[in-house]
């Protein structure tokens, strides 16, 4: 049989990186083909070549058996290939309908727009997705999850025969993922071929028919999803076995309290939150999206103002009004949105690592000591195994996992006593994840207090010495870590809403 899409011997080089080394990939009609591999394995690059965003340096590509070379997104669309990008790429200042049909607006004479038809066509697409959304809604006012759905609607509006989804579920909650999978199954039934990139292993078993694994830009294997155990797939991805043992948690209950928070409040987002973290302890924060975990972290870090509450560092009350105060008090915050908030992506790895510690690299005359910065940067590149050709590489050219390591290096260098990690492994693959877990444990063992906010329950349970659970801005409970606590226990607290009486009062 001919494949919907077939790629053979694909080569791609970027400055300093051999991104794809003779990679092959094929896709049948009506299947979900998962493309897996660690960050930097070349998955996104391969798909961007398929979608006409990058030109390939070598190899062949066929659509329905005919050789093709899509040289632009438009050319790929004409071949029936659509892509949903990992990074949301919507125009926030435009409405949902204007985004969905960008480039194909219904027109009247003289380039005039037919806004009514635009909204009607988009409403039809939304209806086919059972998405109840006004096409005239401004995209910028929508949640990330809702924006993701608009992005999917946009890709589907091209009636693609091939749909590439690059981590479509990264920002979705379980209910939304279930709905997305329903849409995927419907597309499958219509004969659409779907390439599915995800780091969530559980999703692969639920949705994929076949799995192709890449590693370091090379093709490794293609296996059947139903009959291949997950461990085998992980092993193909990382090229080694991963330790699965949950480590023994040290007893930190007698250590000094590093950070204490009393009755922290901010509007409806954060309501009367109190907790403490001891030195050497990892405190996990679990909860559904919008439960107020990130908001708590931002208040502690001084990024947002608080309405009420006290923050004590090492037993002393501190008045934190800005991130500058927080850093001075020894608190570091690693944002969930590292690209926008954590990194200067156009600057080098070295500059980023040194960014918040420039004073230590400055001579009395105010001159920066590049040699010392290089030495420090190289030592962190080595210690954290940051995959980069040199310390002068621009951060934007690194993969997500390696970018996260650069952020961590930056804060390690600052020598903070309290480190808050917000979704430290979002968009990071299995192999790099366990490296980051080991790193967090090492930091705790050195006596730092660590707070980890994560939406992935296995991650919270794997890491946390204690688990704080939030729901609708309130801290609903703190559970012990380790085998004593089940996912069920956490979910009970995470969904412990206030009684209907209180709800009505608030509304």
């Amino acid at each position, binding site marked *: 049989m001919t494949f919907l899409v077939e790629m053979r011997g694909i080569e791609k080089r970027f400055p300093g990186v051999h991104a794809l080394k003779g990679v092959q990939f094929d896709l049948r009609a009506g299947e979900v083909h998962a493309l897996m591999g660690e960050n930097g394995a070349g998955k996104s690059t391969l798909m961007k070549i398929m979608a006409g965003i990058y030109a390939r340096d070598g190899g062949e590509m066929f659509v329905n058996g005919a050789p093709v070379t899509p040289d632009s997104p*438009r050319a790929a669309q004409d071949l029936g290939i659509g892509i949903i990008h990992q990074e949301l790429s919507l125009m926030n200042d435009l409405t949902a309908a204007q985004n969905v049909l960008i480039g194909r607006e219904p027109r009247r004479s003289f380039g005039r727009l037919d806004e009514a038809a635009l909204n009607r066509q988009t409403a039809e697409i939304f209806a086919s997705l059972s998405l109840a959304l006004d096409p005239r809604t401004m995209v910028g006012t929508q949640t990330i999850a809702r924006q993701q759905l608009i992005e999917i609607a946009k890709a589907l509006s091209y009636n693609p025969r091939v749909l590439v989804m690059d981590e479509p579920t990264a920002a979705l909650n379980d209910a939304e993922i279930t709905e997305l999978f329903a849409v995927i199954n419907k597309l499958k039934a219509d004969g659409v071929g779907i390439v599915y990139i995800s780091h969530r292993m559980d999703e692969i078993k639920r949705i994929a028919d076949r799995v192709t694994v890449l590693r370091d830009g090379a093709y490794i294997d293609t296996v059947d999803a139903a009959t291949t155990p997950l461990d085998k797939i992980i092993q193909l991805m990382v090229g080694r076995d991963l330790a699965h043992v949950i480590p023994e948690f040290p007893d930190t209950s007698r250590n000094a309290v590093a950070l204490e928070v009393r009755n922290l409040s901010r509007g409806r987002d954060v309501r009367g939150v109190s907790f403490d973290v001891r030195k050497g302890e990892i405190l996990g924060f679990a909860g559904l999206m919008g439960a107020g975990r990130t908001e708590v972290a931002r208040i502690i870090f001084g990024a947002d103002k608080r309405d009420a509450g006290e923050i004590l560092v090492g037993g002393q009350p501190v008045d934190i009004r800005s991130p500058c105060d927080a850093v001075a008090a020894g608190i570091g915050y690693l944002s969930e949105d590292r690209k926008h908030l954590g990194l200067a992506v156009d600057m080098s790895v070295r500059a980023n690592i040194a960014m918040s510690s420039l004073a230590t690299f400055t001579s009395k005359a105010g001159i920066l000591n590049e040699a010392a910065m290089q030495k420090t940067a190289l030592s962190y590149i080595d210690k954290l195994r940051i995959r980069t050709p040199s310390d002068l590489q621009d951060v934007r050219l690194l993969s997500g996992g390696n970018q996260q390591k650069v952020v961590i290096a930056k804060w390690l260098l600052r020598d903070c006593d309290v480190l808050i990690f917000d979704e430290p492994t979002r968009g990071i693959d299995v192999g790099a994840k366990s490296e980051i877990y080991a790193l967090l444990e090492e930091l705790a063992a050195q006596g730092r207090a660590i707070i980890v906010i994560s939406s992935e329950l296995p991650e919270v349970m794997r890491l946390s010495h204690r688990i704080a659970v939030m729901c609708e801005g309130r801290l609903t409970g703190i559970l012990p870590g380790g085998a004593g606590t089940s996912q069920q226990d956490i979910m009970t607290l995470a969904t412990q809403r206030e009684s209907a009486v209180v709800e009505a009062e608030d509304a």
Partner: protein
Amino acid sequence: MSISTQDAPKSVAARMIATGTHQRVLAFASLIILLIGFSIASPNFMQTSNMIAILQATSVNGVLAIAVTLVIITGGIDLSVGTMMTFCAVITGVVLTYAGLPLWLGVIAAIATGAGCGLCSGTFVAKMKIPPFIATLGMMLILKGMSLVISGTRPIYFNDTPGFSEISRGSLIGQIFPAVPIPNGVLILFVVAGVTAYILNRTVLGRYCFALGSNEESVRLSGVNTDRWKIAIYALSGAIVGIAGLLIASRLNSAQPALGLGYELEAIAAVVIGGTSLSGGRGSILGSLIGALIMAVLTNGLRVLSVAQEWQTVVTGAIIILAVYADMLRRRRSA
């Protein structure tokens, strides 16, 4: 994906705030307050003749502000509109006075020259990937120099083309309604504003204007030829600058080659006061029009109150900072 519609736009008011109309309302309110304030302060202010003088003073800066609004919404900036306006005026002088061609050819020459200049700026920005600030800074100097070279640094007068000064100073409206002799220059300003607003809000070109300023890469990945549209927007902006060139030449009955520098900053100031975001993606023609009016009312009102010209400049500067600060406050609150 069944998701509740609770965030869907509920009221017109909510949508106006969401689309940044709020700032325009704020600017409009400021304009009204200024008008009332000056009327109370001086009986000479609220006279028909003075109102017409204000509108006449707005016409050139208003048209330039409209032109630069288009570019700013795409996320760019245009520093060349002032000297481009002069260049268009000089070319018109060459066509009408030196070559002695008919008036309508002079009008077409001005607009075509502007469009051509815009085409160049647009090509520098879109194709050669030169940042708009630099590309238009270069154009600003090139056009200033070219105006001086072509004219031999001397003004070109339009004494041989009797109808020319009517473009700005005549009054079609005054012929019909003698009570309100609104000059043609003002009429042209409002027509240009109306047409441009229509293009911006109802055509593909306008849609891509906002889309480019909002997320250019996304537009490109959607299969739109972003370079071509960007060049088209700069060209349209240039054509509007050509109209401003006609207006100023007609008002002075001459093309003054040394004139022009500084007009671009006044135009950008009007755009900013009108609530257009310098980071692109948001803005409106009406806002820029109101911004230009505020600047003219301030200048005129302070002059009527006999405030020294130096202080008028200081006040204008302060107004710009206040206007943008008000916008920042609003955004911080809604964030």
